[in-house]
């Protein structure tokens, strides 16, 4: 149920994604080709060693062809070749030696706990990095290649694990994976907005961000520990505090410097917002009767002022009260 809602929500983000891709430059497209190849490699790996996962594969295909509409035919051909085991192994070796300790451990941990979600997390991480690579500039080639290789290898590893066991609910996995990947897409979109602003910046930061996105739990992740605080909730509190503190009521009367009590702090004699204690207000009204804040004369007829605000059906009562006041 949850995944359904997520997919629905993220389905809206998909067209935006494709539109963004169209706007990309040529180098990005080249990178896309490269990515398509890589993706095909691990897909074919699945195809070779796993005959029963056809259904899943087709789903993968369709999803992928949605994402990259310029490459579908080539991909399929390569996928049918089926001799990509060597490629895949080389992929597996090179990145897992490099520094992915954090991601490795986390995915392994998830793999122990439950199979379906482990595959989904693998999916997820792979997609995150790929999407980001597509949208990134080509300045950060070295690092990014490493990372996408790592991500691919991780994904492939997860696939192998999955194959070795008998996976029962392929469809469920797919839906979870898709939803996760779509969520990741939106996340990577957000990070790309930041990225685009300073494309010439060092790729180190990009790399670290990717690591973060690989490692961290997403708010809707199944594996996310219940004890982790909800970030959105936490953010809402300081805002609230700020709102309360911004309405500044002076603690003491600016005229006599005595502390304002509750009645005084609720007393707002002038529309300019200048507050003072009732004693000072009375002494001023006995004198020239002008507000110390704006120097405009105070409303002499306080009753009139109050009732005129209400208006409408109270006009009769207003007239009577004001006439009473006039008699005074």
């Amino acid at each position, binding site marked *: 149920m949850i995944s359904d809602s997520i997919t629905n929500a993220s389905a809206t983000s998909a067209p935006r994604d494709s539109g963004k891709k169209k706007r990309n430059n040529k180098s990005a497209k080249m990178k896309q080709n490269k990515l398509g190849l890589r993706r095909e490699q691990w897909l074919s790996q699945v195809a070779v060693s796993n005959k029963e996962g056809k259904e899943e594969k087709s789903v993968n295909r369709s999803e992928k062809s949605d994402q990259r509409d310029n490459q579908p035919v080539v991909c399929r051909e390569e996928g049918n070749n089926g001799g990509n085991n060597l490629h895949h192994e080389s992929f597996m070796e090179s990145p897992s030696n490099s520094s992915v300790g954090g991601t490795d451990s986390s995915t392994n941990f998830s793999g122990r706990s439950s199979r379906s979600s482990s595959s989904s997390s693998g999916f997820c991480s792979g997609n995150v990095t790929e999407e980001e690579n597509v949208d990134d500039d080509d300045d950060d080639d070295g690092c990014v290649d490493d990372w996408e290789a790592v991500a691919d290898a991780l994904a492939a590893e997860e696939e192998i694990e999955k194959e070795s066991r008998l996976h029962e609910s392929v469809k469920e996995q797919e839906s979870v994976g898709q939803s996760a990947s779509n969520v990741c897409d939106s996340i990577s979109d957000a990070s790309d907005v930041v990225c685009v602003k300073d494309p010439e910046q060092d790729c180190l930061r990009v790399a670290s961000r990717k690591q973060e996105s690989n490692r961290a739990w997403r708010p809707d992740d199944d594996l996310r520990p219940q004890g982790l605080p909800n970030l959105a909730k936490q953010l809402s509190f300081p805002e609230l505090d700020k709102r309360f503190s911004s309405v500044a009521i002076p603690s003491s009367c600016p*005229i*006599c410097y005595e502390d304002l009590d509750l009645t005084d702090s609720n007393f707002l004699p002038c529309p300019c917002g*200048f507050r003072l204690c009732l004693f*000072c207000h009375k*002494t*001023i009204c006995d*004198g020239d009767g002008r507000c*110390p804040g704006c*120097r405009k004369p105070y409303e002499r007829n306080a009753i009139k002022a109050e009732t005129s605000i209400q208006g409408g059906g109270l006009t009769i009562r207003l007239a009577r009260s004001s006439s009473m006041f006039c008699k005074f």
Partner: protein
Amino acid sequence: MQASRARLFKEYKEVQREKVADPDIQLVCDDTNIFKWTALIKGPSETPYEGGVFQLAFAVPEPYPLQPPQVRFLTKIFHPNVHFKTGEICLDILKNAWSPAWTLQSVCRAIIALMAHPEPDSPLNCDSGNLLRSGDVRGFNSMARMYTRLAAMPKKG
């Protein structure tokens, strides 16, 4: 205790606390009478009063803060809005534009602002006002600087 006295005590505390905050103003209360204050203000920079230290005398009336304090220059100053002999200051907030929200400290700030921006159209010092109104800024500046040197600067040696 009257409200004015209480208020002046509070202002005194405030002045003691914020002594460092405004180095251009030094406000001191008379030892025996809290209704008598003196202030030392520095002439604002980029004016002919720059470098001078001017002494002000405050006489706080009983109905303070409903009525403004009476302020005058003890130091001689050549300024269109200051009487040359008595040191009386022509400033609206010390007369009809007074508000109880002002303090002695803020009055000092207003006087510094008046030194930087003279108002020659309501002069108490006609000679000074006439110089400015005739457009002789150079003449006004040299006169004001001379009196600042003579009266507001510590004597050398």
